[in-house]
């Protein structure tokens, strides 16, 4: 079980800001594959992961990172602060 958060246009495409996901995915990439299979909205949001960033427990990470022990996964576009 992992809490999955979406921000900016990823949130808008998927339609929810966060959800609890039942998964046994080993890596972020595996989780993305599972999500894309769920519904066309997810498929569209994750079509190009090079345009996305991921944070694990609020630290920036990579799509090949393991999910073991992670409670919170967030997907979002490149940041535009400042």
């Amino acid at each position, binding site marked *: 079980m992992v809490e999955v*958060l979406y*921000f*900016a*246009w990823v*949130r808008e495409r998927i339609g929810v800001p966060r959800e609890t996901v039942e998964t046994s995915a080993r890596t972020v990439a595996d989780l993305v594959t599972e999500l894309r299979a769920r519904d066309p909205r997810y498929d569209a949001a994750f079509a190009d992961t090079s345009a996305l960033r991921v*944070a694990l427990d*609020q*630290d*920036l990470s990579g799509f090949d990172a393991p999910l073991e022990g992670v409670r919170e996964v*967030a997907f*979002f*576009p*490149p*940041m*535009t*602060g*400042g």
Partner: protein
Amino acid sequence: MKIAVQTEPFDFAAETASFGTGGNNVGAVVTFTGIVRDDSGDLEALELEHYPGMTERAIAKITEEAMTRWELADALVIHRHGRLAVGEPIMMVATAARHRVAAFEAAEFLMDYLKSRAPFWKKEHMRSGTAWVAAKDADEDALKRW
């Protein structure tokens, strides 16, 4: 060191009034203020979304790094989120150091990292519609300097 993430406006004068004072070793204070700009003449407002929790964490990490690397006497970051009108301040940073080069570099480092590593996303509300602001390659490239 002070970090704040908030919707309400900040008081630049109050924030800078006593910033960097208190010791005898501060010779240079630099501030940066980011303001909502309207390039197109079509902008009604800028909306900033952020990732509560991670935002504060990311800014603290960046600011602590700047404090250590440039031996700052003090550092300040205030970043707003929510809906902001054209002309409104979005954020400010301030750095206090012995010498001008350190104060300038630390402020630029903070800005470069806040741009691309703090979880904020800008959406433009124009009369003609809305659009998420795309990240610029130049902003990502700016990080290589550090």
